[in-house]
């Protein structure tokens, strides 16, 4: 069942983002659905699944993107790992923490993408990018991710938090 869900996510998340750009964009900024999915998986399930999904979703994103590099393929598993580790070391995953974490991870992702584009010699001005893309997208990602997490927690509230000691 879980494998089926992951396969469906891989097949649907990025195509949805590509095709439904008009419906999901606010002020010209779209959420990074792949990042949201990877973070939610990391927070709710664990870092191993999040890394796997990060690789798959990042790869799919890069396949359909106009970028010349494979930034998402490298970035999304790292984000999944960070979300998973952060979640694993929590006794109670609160929504404010999830909101802050998603926001921070989205900012991190945006900053790395900016750097990658700058290295290609065509990066926009950092403050313009932060104001126009990074911050709005981070807000959008965080709100969407928390809403999704809340839904999932209501639907499947069987997350078993482990302390760092238990994990080790």
């Amino acid at each position, binding site marked *: 069942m879980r494998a089926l869900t992951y396969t469906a996510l891989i097949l649907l998340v990025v195509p949805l983002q590509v095709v439904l750009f008009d419906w999901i964009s606010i002020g010209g900024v779209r959420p*990074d659905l792949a990042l949201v999915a990877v973070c939610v998986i990391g927070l709710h399930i664990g870092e191993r699944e999040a890394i796997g999904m990060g690789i798959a979703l990042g790869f799919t*994103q890069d396949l*359909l*993107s*106009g970028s010349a590099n494979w930034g998402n393929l490298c970035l999304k598993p790292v984000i999944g790992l960070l979300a998973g580790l952060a979640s694993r070391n929590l006794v109670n995953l609160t929504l404010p923490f999830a909101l802050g974490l998603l926001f921070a991870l989205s900012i991190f992702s945006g900053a790395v*993408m*900016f750097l990658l584009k700058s290295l290609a010699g*065509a990066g926009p001005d950092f403050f313009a990018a932060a104001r126009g893309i990074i911050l709005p*997208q981070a807000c959008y990602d965080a709100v969407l991710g928390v809403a999704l997490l809340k839904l999932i927690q209501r639907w499947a509230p069987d997350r078993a938090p482990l302390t760092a000691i238990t994990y080790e």
Partner: protein
Amino acid sequence: MTGSKRAVLLLLAVLAAALLIFPESRQSPLQTIGRPLASAIALPLRAVDALNQAIETIRNRYLTLRHVREENRAIRQELGRLRMDNAQLREMAAETDRLRALLRLRAVIPFPTVAARVVGRDPTNWYRSIVINKGRKEGLATDMGVMTPAGAVGRIVKVYDYLAIVLLIIDRTNAVTGLVQGTRDEGIVEGTEKGLTRIKYLPLLSTVKVGDQVITSGLAGGFPRGLPIGHITRIERREAELFLSAEIEPSADFVKLEEVLIITTPRETSDLPANPFPLRPTPPDRRDAGETR
């Protein structure tokens, strides 16, 4: 029955017979006698009648309203259906217009093209690219130029069997060789942060001016010479720089891209014919400005 009762009954029968048999004129005394009673009865009679009328009116109104409500609901449903039909028909008409324009363009340009539909946009906010529904199976390859009836749109950067990714000319990582139509100055056209394009490396002594048309030069980038890119809106002259650059407003509307043409073999053929873009003619003032040079 006793005798007195019989007598009363007989009297009543005779009276009734008399009232029926007597001529109408003889009955007036009875009416005169009954007038006060009639007047007394008239008041409650009118009241009852008014009540009846009111009830009847309310009932009629209710029935009418009920009928109107049903009729209204039916009309609203019909209106909704007609609106939907209308929207679909308008959409089909618009699509037909666009496809007709593409076909017209395809018929006049002297190189093979493949028509494709735009199915999506870049999955990130960092690149300006589109996803089209044709790929390697239709003969597409990387670096092929993509255009619309309005002009150049971008070039293919990734191609798969059934879809391809087109990097738009408004993306900063894209570069196309351009030519100012009036002055014949060549430069590199690339995207800007504002979603426009800019032509760089124009000669410092160039007489380029605002409104001049910029076209593809055909030297590189998968485009033949002569495809419109846009017109110049601002010229940037900076001190201590060896070249001029100018901002271009693109001819194509990148927000509303729905169908595009992919130029499959641009360099084997000659230049474009005189006016292959009848839908977006150059404005007269700009054309004149270009011709006077």
